[in-house]
């Protein structure tokens, strides 16, 4: 569940500071055809001697890889940008930076509700290590964040005790580590309950209903529901009873420590893990233990994230030190065995491929115009429609709650070509030269969308639909208004129809609309009146909101009159809707019940909404209950169904 992304809530430092140009990483699927996982290889710039396909081992500046194990769920969404920065920093120090999505997460195959999650996560870490080895590394430093740190410790121990008896893990970095699985499960339970999300409406099960038969190998909502009778939601993600039990059985303090050197980077907002570190040392592990700032800012909502440079510098310095140390003992033996990764497959099979088949649909990591990172998903049949899923705020291309991934795979199975793409400066796409990083309403967004549409059209589809939530809705709508050749726009919970840089946030249209809606409800609340009488209400704020609402209503009534008189208007939503109608673009709006964009559409669009609605050119669908980003899992299927209705698949 993320805060809504207002038009101009962009930290000044980020908007002003151009992102440095960096070598493009290679997006690869790895781990075998039965269960492809997705990852990125960040090669050291000096050793970037890629050849066609980019999948052959290259000479690295060192023989060491930093393999990054992400946290779980919403934390992984938030930490994405920081983990990318960590991989880039590793590459700049001559290491092979490897980041990847755990089994069933991100762009990898599978789902939270699949069985044996912990084992599958550990297997995917092993496969990521094999990927690093197949791409030239013979020594590995694992860096895990939060639950990823717990998994990294387990994976390192498992690799050390593998049949070969020679571990290639020379270091483990635990960043803000979860050391006790039971505590993690409980913390997640507490966070979920604190969110106070709406329960499923009567008649709708808390688990999403089945939408359509899922392609073979893809978790469907139906199988998910039957596989997990007792799902605990975790901010848009899920832990099954089996996963919770497996996690709850893990207490790192009671397990043998990794045999490699360790760096424990504790967060500075909670008590340090002194007991665990003491247990590690008592077990003979050489541990550096530091407490650094940055974790809290690393897992803020994605548009607010601040990359924790101090943590990254400490982690990379540790990894580089291990990389420069002479190989000894077990690691030396493992280095000598670099041609035979532990997974047992030949090196070439583990080197990664830009394409994979997941559940009967093919996925391909693509770079569009050498600028936009995307995953294209195709079904086995003739392509009919192209669907482009845009970033929701600063959430990477997997979408809020990873919704884009199953939606893309199911739409592809139904005959669509689906592109889930990161606009420049978001997700895995670098900012354009001179542009800021992590800017949600970037000035290059329209050009990015146009490039994505051109790429999809070049694949042979005839019709293209743009789908986006929040800022993605804005960019989809504005791209169509700007003349980008699309047949349909699905705008989910837009918060603005006219982006105005520099507008004070507290009087942004969506905020004023939202506050006015809340005041309207509170007029009927005795508690609210008591609060007012007790002097605990910001009366000045209420007065400003009411005045701004009055001004806005008057303005849009005036625009309605001028529109009917056919007076040309600028920045006029009604005029833009009419223009799209004339261009033959089907415009569909989907709103969560309480989202302020709905009221803004009705007010700013005026009679155009109803008139074009009668002509079938505009449609509005409201889903009652969920929050702005459709966090409750019961709402996911409803949103997917609304998207499918809107694009006719």
């Amino acid at each position: 569940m993320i805060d809504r992304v207002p038009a101009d809530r962009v930290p000044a430092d980020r908007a002003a500071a151009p992102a440095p140009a960096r070598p493009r990483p290679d997006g690869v699927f790895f781990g075998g055809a039965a269960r492809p996982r997705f990852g990125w290889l960040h090669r050291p710039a000096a050793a970037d001697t890629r050849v066609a396909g980019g999948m052959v081992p290259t000479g690295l500046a060192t023989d060491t890889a930093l393999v990054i194990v992400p946290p779980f769920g919403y934390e992984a969404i938030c930490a994405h940008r920081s983990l990318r920065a960590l991989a880039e920093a590793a590459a700049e120090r001559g290491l092979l930076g490897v980041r990847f999505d755990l089994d069933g997460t991100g762009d990898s195959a599978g789902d939270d509700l699949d069985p044996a999650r912990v084992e599958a996560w550990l297997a995917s870490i092993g496969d990521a290590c094999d990927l690093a080895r197949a791409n030239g590394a013979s020594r590995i430093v694992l860096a895990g964040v939060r639950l990823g740190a717990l998994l990294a410790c387990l994976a390192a121990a498992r690799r050390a005790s593998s049949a070969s008896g020679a571990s290639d893990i020379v270091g483990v970095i635990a960043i803000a580590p979860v050391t006790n699985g039971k505590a993690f499960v409980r913390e997640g339970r507490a966070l979920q309950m604190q969110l106070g999300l709406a329960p499923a409406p009567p008649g709708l099960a808390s688990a999403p209903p089945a939408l359509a038969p899922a392609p073979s190998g893809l978790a469907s909502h139906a199988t998910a529901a039957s596989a997990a009778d007792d799902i605990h939601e975790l901010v848009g993600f899920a832990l099954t009873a089996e996963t919770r039990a497996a996690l709850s059985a893990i207490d790192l303090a009671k397990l043998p420590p990794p045999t490699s050197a360790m760096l424990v980077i504790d967060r500075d907002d909670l008590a340090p893990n002194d007991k665990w570190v003491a247990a590690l040392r008592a077990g003979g592990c050489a541990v550096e233990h530091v407490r650094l700032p940055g974790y809290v800012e690393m897992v803020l909502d994605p548009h607010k994230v601040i990359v924790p440079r101090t943590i990254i510098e400490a982690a990379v310095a540790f990894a580089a030190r291990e990389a420069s140390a002479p190989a000894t003992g077990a690691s030396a033996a493992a280095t000598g065995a670099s041609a035979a990764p532990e997974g047992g497959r030949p090196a070439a099979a583990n080197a990664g491929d830009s394409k994979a088949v997941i559940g009967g649909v093919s996925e391909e990591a693509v770079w569009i115009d050498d600028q936009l990172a995307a995953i294209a998903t195709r079904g086995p049949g003739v392509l009919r429609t192209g669907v482009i899923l845009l970033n929701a705020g600063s959430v990477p291309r997997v979408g809020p709650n990873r919704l884009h991934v199953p939606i893309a795979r199911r739409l592809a199975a139904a005959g669509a070509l689906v592109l889930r793409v990161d606009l420049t400066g978001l997700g895995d796409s670098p900012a354009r030269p001179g542009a800021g990083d992590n800017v949600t309403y970037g000035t290059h967004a329209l050009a990015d969308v146009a490039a994505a549409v051109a790429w999809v059209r070049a694949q042979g589809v005839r019709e293209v639909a743009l789908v986006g939530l929040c800022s993605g809705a804005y960019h989809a709508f504005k791209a169509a208004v700007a003349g980008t050749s699309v047949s349909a726009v699905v705008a989910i919970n837009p918060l603005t129809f006219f982006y105005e840089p520099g507008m004070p946030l507290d009087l942004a249209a969506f905020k004023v609309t939202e506050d006015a809606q809340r005041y309207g409800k509170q007029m009927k609340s005795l508690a609210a009146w008591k609060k007012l009488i007790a002097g605990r209400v910001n009366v000045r704020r209420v007065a400003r909101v009411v005045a701004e609402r009055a001004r806005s209503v008057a303005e849009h009534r005036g625009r309605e009159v001028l529109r009917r008189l056919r007076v040309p208007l600028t920045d006029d939503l009604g005029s833009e809707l009419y223009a799209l109608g004339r261009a033959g673009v089907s415009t569909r709006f989907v709103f969560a019940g309480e989202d302020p964009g709905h009221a803004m559409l009705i007010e700013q669009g005026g009679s155009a909404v109803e008139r074009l609605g009668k002509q079938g050119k505009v449609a509005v669908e409201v889903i009652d209950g969920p929050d702005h980003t459709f966090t409750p899992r019961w709402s996911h299927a409803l949103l997917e169904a609304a998207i499918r209705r809107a694009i006719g698949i």
Partner: protein
Amino acid sequence: MSENATKIRNILKEHGRLTKDASALGERDDLYQAGMTSHASVNVMLALEGEFDVEFPDHMLKRSVFESIAAITSAIDELTQGR
């Protein structure tokens, strides 16, 4: 002010990420309106558990238990009753 209330205010000051001074808050002031996020409230919960050596049971893991100093005090009193 009770000893528990003082400890709670100190924890809120350190972990609540409030936009207002915790010592200036009223007993029944809404902590969420004072800037405490859901994530911060979990940190507050963990810190309270450490400070008072208690464990919040599932039925207490809800917004209302952490919405004010009075609500937190009541919960802590309930959990430490009989000690």
